[in-house]
């Protein structure tokens, strides 16, 4: 279990600064696919970080929402990484990122692509989550995606789809509050209704990240860029979630246009302040 405290996505550029002053950051998360090489600097840094802090391994390439079964060779490599570092948490996405073509074999697309929410895809995703949990020998947290389009054939609301995957497979959920805000803005959904439909007791980790906006005639199109500070409406939603659910491990993601360590640490501290308040609120409620 990760601590119910603020964490950040680990970036090699911050390594020296973190060693000097972790600034209250209580855990770190890495993308599994960046640490599947055999050795060298990535593992030297990860071993140092994992020796001092709880670690979250976050997969971006298992393509759980893909039409094909889970890539056994890739899953095996992720398993070896998890065995090596014994992370407190492993998470992946409700999305697909690889596609097999007859002429080219499997192509990895390096993006988290959306899927329709139907009984058929629900069964497929559950099957894939089972394969991952079995292959890794551990429970998975499944993350809600940021999406830009919807599928006409979708019949299950996104939070209900996630809840049902968790119910059938026993997996937990990773609630990305920025993704909720991005998808709800893009599709005209109500973010509070979305959050109310999600069983918060299944949430094992929260993600917060920055987004970019593009103005379309119908209004803003939000893009999950991970390249900016967390937006104010996302902080507000996050505070509501924490007030309701109590403190949860909360990760600030910042992958592009990387700021200096103090800027990222300040974002984590802002989450930490909300977590502390949430804990006090719960204590009063008891």
């Amino acid at each position: 279990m990760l601590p119910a405290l603020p964490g950040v996505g680990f970036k090699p550029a911050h390594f020296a600064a973190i060693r000097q002053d972790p600034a209250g950051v209580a855990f770190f998360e890495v993308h599994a696919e960046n640490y599947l090489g055999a050795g060298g600097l990535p593992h030297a840094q990860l071993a140092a970080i994992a020796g001092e802090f709880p670690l979250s391994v976050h997969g971006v390439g298992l393509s759980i929402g893909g039409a094909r079964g889970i890539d056994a060779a890739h899953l095996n490599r992720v398993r070896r990484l998890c065995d090596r570092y014994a992370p407190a948490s492993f998470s992946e996405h409700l999305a697909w990122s690889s596609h097999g073509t007859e002429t080219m074999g499997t192509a990895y697309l390096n993006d988290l692509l959306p899927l329709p929410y139907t009984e058929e895809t629900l069964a497929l995703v559950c099957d894939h989550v089972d394969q991952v949990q079995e292959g890794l020998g551990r429970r998975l947290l499944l993350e809600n995606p940021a999406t830009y389009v919807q599928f006409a054939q979708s019949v299950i609301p996104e939070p209900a789809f996630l809840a049902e995957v968790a119910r059938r497979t026993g997996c937990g959920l990773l609630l990305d509050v920025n993704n909720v805000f991005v998808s709800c803005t893009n599709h005209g959904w109500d973010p509070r209704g979305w959050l109310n439909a999600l069983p918060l007791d299944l949430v094992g980790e929260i993600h917060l990240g920055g987004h970019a906006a593009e103005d379309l005639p119908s209004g803003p199109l939000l893009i999950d860029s991970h390249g900016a500070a967390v937006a104010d409406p996302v902080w507000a939603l996050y505070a509501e979630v924490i007030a309701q659910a109590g403190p949860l491990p909360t990760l600030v993601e910042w992958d592009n246009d990387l700021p200096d360590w103090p800027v990222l640490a300040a974002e984590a501290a802002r989450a930490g302040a909300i977590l502390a308040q949430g804990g006090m609120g719960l204590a009063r409620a008891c």
Partner: protein
Amino acid sequence: MMAAFHAGLRGGAVPPGLMARHEDELGRRFAIYRNNVAVSLGEALATRFPVIRRLVGEAFFAALARVYAEAEPPCSPVLAEWGEGFAGFLAGFPPVAELPYLPDVARIEYARGQAFHAADAAPVDPRALAAADPARVRLRLHPSLRMLRLAHPAVSIWARNQPDGADGPLATGPEVALILRDAGYDVPVWSLGAGDAALIEAMLTGAPLAEAAAMAATAEIGHAPTPLLSRLMQSGAVTGAEA
């Protein structure tokens, strides 16, 4: 569904069955995915091949990456392993035919990426080496070490295009590149003479040190193995000495 979506990402039509809040904005919204795939793969390739990008320019490289990603998309989510075929692709790509050294530079850059992620191995104790019988001892070299025989002066070109690269006189003709990860996790590229290249090649095939030195002296009259061996030792690249 995914086949149509994938075709759309590769420049085909927006797949059927998608919805947006306003139907006439569907193309713009789908384009986010198309752009994410193209840009993120282009950035992944640029991370691995920074000198190629510098040599052809950013805009050309972005277009080149799109063509390459279509021809040889990554087959695994481990993007550090993508690009093994990039040198061969460049060799057969007519728009860069006027830059015949590009494939060799790409070979160096791909090998550097592999060296960066290669397995760890502790350097051998210098005393073990000093005590060994040169006629029998076989030196094991670091897993990151790679040697490339290149038709073009690609080591010089690579070196000139580093952030601190000097504008020295450009070598002409073939070069041999030695790539290894040193104790500080840097991945330098050395240019080897004929004798040093033969020495490394012989050691990599498991020849005892004395035999490797003899092969080096055949490749380059009067070659002395000691300077390269000390340089390898200093870089932590000798990881075993077995009789």
